[in-house]
C-alpha cells in the first residue's frame, strides 16, 4: 500500500510492549498494528489481578548469561479445599518449582523463546515461541501432569498484517480456535474469535473492541457463553494508574465491578483493589536492596469471611 509500513515487534510474553507504539505516524492511511486478541485486556488485568497468594513464596531467579536463566520457586501455604461452602476450609500444601528460560533475539524478533517449569507435584509445563519471519510466528504450549486426561497441548500460529493480527489455535482433545483483530481507526481496534471444542461438541464466539489513547485504554469483550466484560484504565501520572473492571454474566445475571489502583515508585509497587463482592485485595512489592524484593499479599473477602495473607521474597530480577 504505502511506504511507511509500521513494523511491530512480536509480543514478548513477559513485557507489555505494545506493538505499534513505536510506529511513526503514518503519512498515508496506514494504521498501526493492533494488539493481539488475547492481549486486549492485558494492561487492565496487570493492575486488577496481581498474583495474590496465601502463605510463603520464595523465588530465586538467576541469569546464567543474556540468553539463559534458571528459576527456583518454593511455595508453602494454604489452598482452599473445593466444595466447602459456605465456610471455606483450607489445607496446607507445599510445592517446589524449577524453571528454565531461554531467549534468543535478533533485532526485535524472538528467534526462539523457551520456558519450562517442573513442579514437585509432578506437573511440567513448557512453552516454545518461534518467530519464523517478521510476520509469522508459531507458539507451542504443553502442560503435562501425572493424572490421566489432564494433560494439555496447544499450537498457535500467528500472522501479523499491516493493520491486523490473526491467530489460529489447535489443541489436544480437538480444540480449535481462530481469532482476528483489525485496527479500524488509529485509536480503535475491533476483533472477534471463534472456538470449537471437539469432544464436547461446543462452540463459542466472542467479539472485542479496544479504544486506546495516550492515557486511557478501554476495552469491551462479549462472549457467547454469556459474559460481558468491560475494562477501563487511566494513567493519572507516570507513577499512578487506576483501573476498573465490570463483568456481567447474563446466564446467572450476576454482575461484579472492581476498582483498582497501581502505584509504582522506584522502591516499591503497590496495587490495591476493591470489589462489589466486598472483597478487598492488596499486593506490595518492595525492593529492599538490589536483587532482593519483599512481597506482601492480602485478600479479604468479607462476605465469605475468608482472609488470605501471604509474604514472600524474590531474589534476582
Amino acid at each position: 500500500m504505502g511506504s511507511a509500513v509500521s513494523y511491530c515487534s512480536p509480543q514478548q510474553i513477559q513485557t507489555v510492549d505494545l506493538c505499534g507504539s513505536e510506529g511513526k505516524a503514518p503519512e498515508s492511511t496506514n494504521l498501526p498494528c493492533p494488539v493481539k486478541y488475547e492481549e486486549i485486556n492485558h494492561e487492565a488485568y496487570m493492575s486488577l489481578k496481581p498474583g495474590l497468594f496465601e502463605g510463603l513464596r520464595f523465588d530465586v531467579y538467576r541469569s546464567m548469561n543474556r540468553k539463559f536463566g534458571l528459576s527456583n520457586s518454593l511455595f508453602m501455604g494454604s489452598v482452599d479445599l473445593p466444595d466447602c461452602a459456605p465456610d471455606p476450609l483450607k489445607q496446607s500444601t507445599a510445592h517446589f518449582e524449577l524453571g528454565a528460560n531461554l531467549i534468543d533475539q535478533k533485532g526485535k524478533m524472538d528467534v526462539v523463546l523457551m520456558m519450562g517449569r517442573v513442579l514437585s507435584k509432578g506437573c511440567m509445563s513448557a512453552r516454545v515461541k518461534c518467530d519464523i519471519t517478521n510476520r509469522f510466528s508459531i507458539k507451542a504450549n504443553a502442560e503435562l501432569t501425572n493424572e490421566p486426561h489432564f494433560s494439555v497441548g496447544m499450537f498457535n500460529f500467528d500472522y501479523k498484517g499491516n493493520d491486523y493480527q490473526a491467530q489460529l489455535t489447535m489443541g489436544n482433545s480437538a480444540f480449535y480456535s481462530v481469532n482476528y483483530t483489525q485496527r479500524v481507526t488509529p485509536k480503535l481496534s475491533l476483533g472477534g474469535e471463534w472456538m470449537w471444542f471437539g469432544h464436547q461438541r461446543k462452540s463459542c464466539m466472542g467479539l472485542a473492541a479496544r479504544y486506546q489513547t495516550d492515557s486511557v485504554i478501554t476495552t469491551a469483550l462479549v462472549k457467547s457463553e454469556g459474559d460481558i466484560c468491560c475494562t477501563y484504565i487511566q494513567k493519572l501520572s507516570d507513577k499512578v494508574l487506576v483501573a476498573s473492571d465490570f463483568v456481567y454474566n447474563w446466564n446467572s445475571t450476576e454482575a461484579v465491578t472492581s476498582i483498582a489502583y497501581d502505584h509504582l515508585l522506584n522502591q516499591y509497587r503497590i496495587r490495591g483493589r476493591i470489589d462489589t463482592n466486598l472483597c478487598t485485595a492488596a499486593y506490595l512489592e518492595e525492593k529492599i536492596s538490589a536483587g532482593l524484593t519483599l512481597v506482601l499479599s492480602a485478600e479479604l473477602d468479607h462476605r465469605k469471611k475468608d482472609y488470605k495473607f501471604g509474604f514472600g521474597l524474590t531474589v534476582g530480577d
Partner: protein
Amino acid sequence: MGSAISYCSPHHALTAAVCGDDIKLPEYTNLPCPVMYEEITREAYMSLKPEHFEGLRFDISRAVNNKFAMSNRVFMGLIDLPGNSGSVQKQSTGHFDVGANLVDQKGKMDVVLVMRRILSEGRLSAKVKYDVNNRFSIKADAQLTNEPHFTLGMFNFDYKGYDYQARLTMGNNAYYGINYMQSVTPKLSLGGEGIWLGHQRKSSMGLAARYKADTVICTGHVKSEGQINFTYVQRLSDKLSVASDFVYNWNSREANTSMAFDYLIRQCRLRGRVNTNYCTTAYLEEKLTSGLTFLLSAELDHIRKNYKFGFGMTIGD
C-alpha cells in the same frame, strides 16, 4: 537475722526482671529471693515460645499518660480445625480486641495494675495486681465469656520472704493451688506445688529446681501428671542467647526436644527454633521506625505438613 536484707521488687507482670538481680554479695548466709514458682522457665520460654500466629496481626498501643495506656488489636487469619484422617484443616477467622492498662507505681511497688481485653466475640479478660505492702500482694484474674461454664476466675495471694516465695491460689470450680520456692544456695533454688481440682476430685503435685549462674539458667520440673521438663538458657553475648527444652511424658512415653536461638540486632529481633518433631519456627520483629514494628512469623510442621505464616504490624511501644 542480719542487716543486709536483700529487698526484691515485686514482679512486674510485663517485664522479666528477676528479683534478686541487684543485690550485693551477702556477707553471711543470707540468700537472695528466688523467682516465683510459675516464673522459673520464663527466660527460656521467651526465646523458645514467641507468639506465633497465622494471618495478619495489627496492634496499636497508645499511652494516654504515664499511667494509662489503651491498645487495639485486629487479627485476621486461620485457625486449625481438628480434621479427619489426621490432616489439618483451617478456617478463616477474624477478631478485634480493645484493651486498657493502668499502672500505678510507688517506688518499686505496684499499687494497682489493671489489664483488660474485650474480644469482638464477647469475651472479657481482666487482671488486677495489688501490692498490699513490700511482702504481700494479691492478684485476681477473670475471663468471662458468653458460653456457660467457660468463665474462669482466680485469686492469687503471694508472700515474699527473705529467701523464699509462697503463693496460694483459689479459683472457681473449686480449684486450689499452693506453691513454694526456696533459695538453697546463691545460685540454686528449689520449689514445689500442690493443686487440687475440686469438681473432678483430682490432685497433682510438682517439684522444681532452678540453677542460675551469670550466663546460664537451668531449670528442671517434674509434675505428677507425668511430665518431666528441663530447660537450659545460655547467654552467649549481649545480643545472642540460645535456649533448649526437653519434655518427657512418662504416661504417653513421648519425648520432645527443641533448640532455639534469640538474636538481637540493632533494629530487629529474630528467634528461631527447631524441634525433634520436625517442626521449625521463626519469629522476626523489625523496628522500621520509632514506634513502628513489623512482624513476621513462620511455623513449619513437616510431619503433619502444616505450614503457618503470618505478618503484622505493631504501632506504639
